[in-house]
């Protein structure tokens, strides 16, 4: 955990109350955001996102699989997050297991939507190759390289960028009835299909310190929080996931207020993310 | 020796102490004072077992299940059947996989990630008794010889541990098997066996096992654990008594009165006469358990009829 003296704690809380945080930001201001894409050549898509000192990597790997019996017309997506032991001293050994599981579940909740597939970030029916026989399985892996607060937002942003970077090989199917109904698939090396990532939401975490809430908290600020609400908002401004963290209870009206603030902030975050992606592309072109 | 000094020391203090404190500080003296009066701390006679209840069909997600309470000890057994292909050596037999669980809820001594030491021991003992008693005819679990048979996953969960765990576990296992109803199965076009469910006659495939919905149980084993302390025999000990006593003997007799298993896990030495007395007690207990089991089957049938 972050070791802070009483004076430092007071300074952080006081700064937030006066809308001037320790690093000079206002309460609803993000840290500098940089994005890199295509950093892992073996993966179908990958991205690195830095927010201040927080750094995360997301990768997307697509493999051909078999759809489940219950959903023969849909592909599968699995999300898993790992915390590198180098990211923070407390992640050493088995220390990160609980946090990894918590982040994985929160991301699954925000990105995979309901059981029927409504509100999912990725249209699972677009992953189908042959109904009931073959589909794409997407393995989305997140890695926390360096931790300085707001991991969930950074991971969600990295996954969004990684998905837009993802190209899925085009598949030619030759249905051959003689081979027991198993389709023969031919994976193309040259042609790729791009994903529609407009539905992939971003996550905005509002951390409540004292009476106020802040976005993009550093780990020092997180150590002072009473509770935090992570809201995932898609580009249409619809809520598609919500998780509350921290022990203290919240008044319902505060939660509703936080949701509407998160919605407003998310639109700014979208612009921020888009300009970061544009900057990354410009840098790659040079 | 130390026990005796303990007892005399306790005797001196006895008059000035609350009963609960005395019970916790000098458990041995507390028990022995009771035994001198031929009574147990919970007001039972020495040879008396705790009240036993059997409730069949406690879990609807299993094919057969039973909840057994033996005093405060509670045991939940459930059987789930799955189709598998039988092994090459025994093509016409099914199989039973026994597992005994002690989840952390049952006792303060068990914590998550650190399984109870007693669990694998009881698991093995249950399996041995079940297989050697001849209660089950494994051939009845066969569907199509060499192709398909049932594997019965028998899971016993201890919900509250208060002594005589093996007894409660075995009673619940026996009860679960009496409750077990085998689902209907048929063979599909592709040769795969699948379960059909309740609506008989509606499917286009022929049912394989229309006749075999219940297992015919052979001789049913009934257990009794007796705690031995000095010259006393305490039937069906509680956890408190088990922690004090010198040794115990577990006798399993089948419903025809034959001896299935007898186990004395170390501890103090015992005379042949004591063992014989234990077997005698087990015989009486077996009769009682048989009645309890029959009653529970009737109670369930009444429930279903309503």
């Amino acid at each position, binding site marked *: 955990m972050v070791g802070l003296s009483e004076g430092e704690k007071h300074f952080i809380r006081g700064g937030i109350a006066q809308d001037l945080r320790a690093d000079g930001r206002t309460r609803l201001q993000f840290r500098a955001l940089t994005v890199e894409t295509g950093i892992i050549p073996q993966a179908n898509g990958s991205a690195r996102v830095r927010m201040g000192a927080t750094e995360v990597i997301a990768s997307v790997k697509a493999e051909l699989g078999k759809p489940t019996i219950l959903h023969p017309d849909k592909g599968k997506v699995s999300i898993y997050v790992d915390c590198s032991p180098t990211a923070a001293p407390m992640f050493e050994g088995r220390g990160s297991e609980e946090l990894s599981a918590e982040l994985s579940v929160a991301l699954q909740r925000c990105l995979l939507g309901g059981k029927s597939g409504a509100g999912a970030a990725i249209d699972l029916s677009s992953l189908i190759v042959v109904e009931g026989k073959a589909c794409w399985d997407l393995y989305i892996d997140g890695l926390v390289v360096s931790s300085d607060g707001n991991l969930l937002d950074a991971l969600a942003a990295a996954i969004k960028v990684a998905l837009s970077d993802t190209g899925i090989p085009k598949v030619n199917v030759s249905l051959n009835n003689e081979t027991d109904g198993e389709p023969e698939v031919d994976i193309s090396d040259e042609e790729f299909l791009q994903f529609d990532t407009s539905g992939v939401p971003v996550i905005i975490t509002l951390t409540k310190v004292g009476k106020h809430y802040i976005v993009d908290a550093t780990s020092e600020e997180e150590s002072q929080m009473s509770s935090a609400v992570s809201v995932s908002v898609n580009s249409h401004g619809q809520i598609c996931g919500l998780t509350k963290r921290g022990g203290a209870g919240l008044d319902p009206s505060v939660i509703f207020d936080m949701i509407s603030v998160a919605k407003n902030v998310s639109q700014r975050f979208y612009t921020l993310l888009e300009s970061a992606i544009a900057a990354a592309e410009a840098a790659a072109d040079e | 020796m130390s026990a005796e000094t303990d007892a005399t020391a306790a005797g001196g203090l006895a008059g000035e102490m609350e009963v609960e404190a005395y019970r916790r500080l000098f458990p041995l003296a507390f028990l022995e004072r009771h035994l001198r009066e031929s009574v147990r701390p919970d007001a039972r006679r020495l040879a008396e077992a705790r009240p036993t209840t059997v409730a069949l069909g406690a879990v609807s997600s299993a094919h057969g*299940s039973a909840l057994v309470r033996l005093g405060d000890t509670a045991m939940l057994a459930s059987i789930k059947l799955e189709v598998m292909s039988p092994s090459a050596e025994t093509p016409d037999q099914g199989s039973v996989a026994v597992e005994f669980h002690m989840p952390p809820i049952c006792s303060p001594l068990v914590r998550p990630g650190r399984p109870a030491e007693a669990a694998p021991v009881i698991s093995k003992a249950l399996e041995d008794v079940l297989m050697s008693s001849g209660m089950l005819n494994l051939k009845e679990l066969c569907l199509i010889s060499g192709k398909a048979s049932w594997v019965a*996953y028998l899971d016993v969960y201890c919900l509250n541990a208060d002594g005589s765990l093996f007894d409660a576990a075995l009673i619940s296992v026996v009860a679960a098997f009496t409750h077990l109803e085998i689902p209907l199965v048929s063979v599909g076009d592709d040769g795969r066996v699948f379960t059909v469910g309740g609506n008989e006659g509606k499917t286009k495939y022929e049912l394989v096992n229309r006749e075999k919905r219940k297992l015919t149980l052979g001789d049913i084993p009934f257990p009794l654990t007796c705690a031995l302390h000095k010259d006393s025999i305490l039937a069906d000990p509680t956890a408190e008594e088990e922690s004090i006593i010198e040794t115990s003997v577990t006798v399993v007799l089948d419903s025809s009165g034959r001896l299935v298993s007898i186990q004395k896990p170390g501890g103090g030495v015992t005379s042949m006469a004591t063992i014989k007395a234990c077997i005698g007690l087990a015989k009486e207990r077996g009769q009682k358990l048989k009645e309890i089991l029959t009653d529970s089957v009737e109670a369930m049938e009444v429930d279903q009829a309503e």
Partner: protein
Amino acid sequence: MMELLDFMLSWCFSSTQPKGYMLCSTVFLRRICTLLSVSADDAIMLLLLGNTEVMQTGPTTAASGSAYAEFGKTKVIVSVFGPRESKKAMLYSDTGRLNCSVSYTTFATGIRGQGLENKEYSGMLHKALEGAVMLHTFPKTTVDVFALVLESGGSDLPIIISCASLALADAGIMMYDLVTSVSVSCLGKNVLIDPTSDEEAWQDGGLMVSYMPARKEITQLTLTGEWTDGKITNAVELCMDACSKLCEILRERLKDPASLASE
């Protein structure tokens, strides 16, 4: 009307139906809901009518406190141990620790061993309860909350949470308030309270609220699927209302633990 709905639901979801019925049943369920226009208020009725609930304290005598809850098919036992000595490896702490663990029996779900998928429940239970327990009343020690799901029939986590707070109260652990929890499933335009596992399997979205009625505070809130603002507000208010009602039942149970609740 309710009987009809009940009958139709049980027909189209009975596990005895071959798989083909299961596939069409999502469409079928929506149709039933629109047909009967199940509104939020009716949904509460559904909770009271459709699912018999049983809650009682004290099934496990070996524990400091315990509770058993049965909502329809879902059956849960929670035992509370302690306050007792913390593990040796733990550092000194001037507040107490709350340790939660949720496990499933191997036969809890239709497919054997499927309950292992819900690993995150232990952490979620901890988060729902930690805001309510007065940790400073038992420094240096640990209170263990162990839950065992005997049978899973939907809405598992909210039932575990409510049952655990009943067990904590039974153990005499100091709490600010009882935490009760209720979840809703969103199917098409309708919101179903206390969903069964079949309803959960086809839901468009789900929402779970853990609530302390006397303090009017939400300790845990999770949401999946796509929701509009207005719908979230309605669903959360519906859950809070149901939580308050459930809390009344828990209070009754604590006052008179001997009687069995079956409403």
